């Protein structure tokens, strides 16, 4: 029985995802993005049938598992566009370093201001990095990796929905500005969105995502604990 649920979960997730994709491509409405509709439909089905997340995930985690090799696969667009990367190395590095610091500090402060508990705060801090890395960081700084995975996803979905609006009101025209903000602000989901704008935007977003991951590991595991100590003991004793 549990094997059956696992198989149905895996195949069902794939089927629902591609059905949503067809609708999204047909009607071209941002809020119809498969990233938003697929989880909602699946959650609805799970609640309706009384299936637990564990038994669903026993099959569906094959998909999560593929994030490992998929992260490695980003070496391909980076290799192909390496001359572009070298040409823009300084801009990429500086904007992503600033973006990563802002992501960590703003998540931390806003979470404190709205009064979330410790576990939630620490699970929110790594939210703008791609899932496998965010989960590792969360574990290292005392958050909950599964909660972080949910927050990373929410960031990806909301970030991709907000990005076109931000691009319009801020008049970002260059592929580098658009790609970097998408890869930094909404990681993998943002990168997919950036490829909808164009090949160059997508490449910049891929680079942003990888650089953000590396910088965030350093910032959140080495500097964040010191920063947090400082804020908690000196600013808010």
């Amino acid at each position, binding site marked *: 029985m549990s094997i059956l649920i696992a198989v149905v979960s895996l195949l069902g997730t794939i089927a629902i995802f591609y059905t949503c994709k067809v609708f999204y491509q047909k009607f071209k409405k941002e809020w119809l993005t498969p990233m938003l509709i697929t989880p909602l439909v699946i959650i609805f089905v799970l609640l309706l049938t009384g299936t637990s997340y564990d038994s669903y*995930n026993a099959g569906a985690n094959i998909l999560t598992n593929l994030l490992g090799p998929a992260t490695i696969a980003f070496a391909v667009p980076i290799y192909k566009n390496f001359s572009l990367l070298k040409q823009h190395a300084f801009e990429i590095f500086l904007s992503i370093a600033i973006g990563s610091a802002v992501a960590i500090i703003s998540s931390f402060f806003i979470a404190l201001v709205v009064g979330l508990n410790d576990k939630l705060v620490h699970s929110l801090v790594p939210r703008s990095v791609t899932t496998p890395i965010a989960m590792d960081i969360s574990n290292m700084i005392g958050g909950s990796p599964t909660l972080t995975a949910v927050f990373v996803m929410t960031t990806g979905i909301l970030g991709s929905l907000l990005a076109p609006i931000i691009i319009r009101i801020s008049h970002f025209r260059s592929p580098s500005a658009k790609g*970097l903000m998408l890869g930094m602000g909404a990681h993998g989901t943002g990168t997919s969105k950036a490829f909808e704008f164009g090949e160059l935007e997508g490449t910049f977003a891929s680079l942003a995502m990888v650089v953000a991951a590396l910088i965030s590991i350093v910032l959140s595991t080495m500097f964040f604990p010191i920063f947090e100590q400082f804020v908690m003991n000196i600013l808010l004793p």
Partner: protein
Amino acid sequence: MKIAKSLVQIGYLYILLFIGNSIARLLHLPIPGSIIGLILLFLLLQFHIIKLEWIELGAGLLLSELLLFFIPSAIGVIDYDALFGVQGVKVVLVIVVSAIVVMLVTGYTAQWLEQRKKGNAA
């Protein structure tokens, strides 16, 4: 045929992941094995130790279907009843405000640096 080839190539990426994980564990690095694998693959391609054709199809398949792999983690939310109430609204608020700030800052920094470079060149 193309599918079989892609699957074999994804197998190669899993080997790199395994190597990356092993390196992280042996050297006690705080970096996930997947990122080490990414850097390793990049170096192998850059130094022409492996050919792009050996992994291009599989890598392309994974990258084009990337969104699908994030879905099961998102469903994890159903295990956190507390997130369906006030806490959830607060969390969404944190994410929305922080995401807007991050994207504005990153975009403006990138644009400013690029314009400055163009100004210097002219």
